[in-house]
């Protein structure tokens, strides 16, 4: 079995899962009731996407190893940091609302282009998951774009908070478009999405009266399992229950 394909599917799943987990941290703490529900809705959409990808990855792993040990749960809850292939951007802390909506905007703009391309993938399962998820992501992109504009072109304070968020997150956006080996082998060259992504960011930032950052050093590593210190804490919280009470059900 093609192990790069399994890596690729896990990469897609990990991105969605870690973003879902981060957004879920807002549950019960959103700035207003309506936005609390909005951000957790997005979290659930992403969780659903990750489940689809994990189920497919588990199926491929079991077929290749002639076992039935891999499940969506074992992939999500029983792997350690180095096995996770999500991008740096997904694991960055929520910070304030500005940082959360900006992270979502950067990520959704990327996911939108990614899924649009993947819905024509030769692997029918990946194509089907991407096509289904694209509708959700279209809404995430719309929602997060509007928030970036609202805060960027809002009050002096909201504008300043967006600037701080851009400073914090911009360095993690380059990695999205630097393909890992498994992406080139089993997916496609994601660097081809970079121009469209950048143009979308420029368009939204212009409306938001926000400056587009200069070229800067871009952090990389997440896709190959080298993570920032944040991922360990995320996994510790997310995996605690399954590791403490194996196979717990409720």
């Amino acid at each position, binding site marked *: 079995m093609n192990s790069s394909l399994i890596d690729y599917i896990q990469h897609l799943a990990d991105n969605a899962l870690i973003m879902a987990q981060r957004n879920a*941290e807002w549950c019960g703490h959103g*700035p*207003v009731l309506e936005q609390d529900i909005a951000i957790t*809705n997005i979290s659930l959409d992403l969780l659903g996407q990750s489940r689809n990808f994990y189920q497919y990855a588990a199926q491929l792993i079991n077929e290749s190893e002639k076992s039935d040990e891999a499940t969506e749960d074992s992939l999500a809850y029983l792997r350690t940091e180095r096995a996770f292939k999500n991008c740096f951007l997904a694991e960055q802390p929520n*910070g304030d609302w500005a940082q959360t909506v900006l992270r979502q905007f950067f990520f959704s703009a990327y996911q939108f282009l990614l899924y649009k391309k993947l819905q024509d993938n030769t692997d029918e399962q990946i194509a089907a998951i991407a096509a289904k998820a694209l509708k959700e992501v279209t809404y995430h992109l*719309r929602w997060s774009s509007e928030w970036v504009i609202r805060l960027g072109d809002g009050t002096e304070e909201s504008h300043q908070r967006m600037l701080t968020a851009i400073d914090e997150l911009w360095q993690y956006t380059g990695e999205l478009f630097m393909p890992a080996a498994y992406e080139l082998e089993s997916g496609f060259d994601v660097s081809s999405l970079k121009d469209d992504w950048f143009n979308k960011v420029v368009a939204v930032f212009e409306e938001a009266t926000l400056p587009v950052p200069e070229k800067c050093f871009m952090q990389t590593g997440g896709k190959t399992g080298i993570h920032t210190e944040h991922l360990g804490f995320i996994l510790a919280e997310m995996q605690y229950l399954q590791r403490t009470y194996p196979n717990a059900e409720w």
Partner: protein
Amino acid sequence: MNIQIRKYYYGDIPEDNAGGSESKESKVSPATGGGGNWPLWEVFIRSKQGLDHKHVGSLHAADAAMAIENARDVYTRRQEGVSIWVVESKFITASNPEEAGELYEPAADKIYRHPTFYELPDEVGHM
């Protein structure tokens, strides 16, 4: 006497208990904004084509576009609707409950106004 009463809005959890964030900067206080200052909107949802929009509740939003999206997230998560209307609550004029007597009671003894004296064909559907 200078008594300050501070009203906490949803999500504005005092002290450092506000989660969803590792940054103390994230707290939204009524003084600097947050949904507490947003106007109230009434939400109407059409559950399927052919039916009319029904009032389902209200929510806070900064403007009409946000109200539509909030309504989508709050009221249509379980496939409740195919169309949403929102209107700012202040634009709704309501009748006065104290005038219920003169407004509604005169209709009570005029049953001939009910369309109950002929049969509706089934094809008419929702009436």
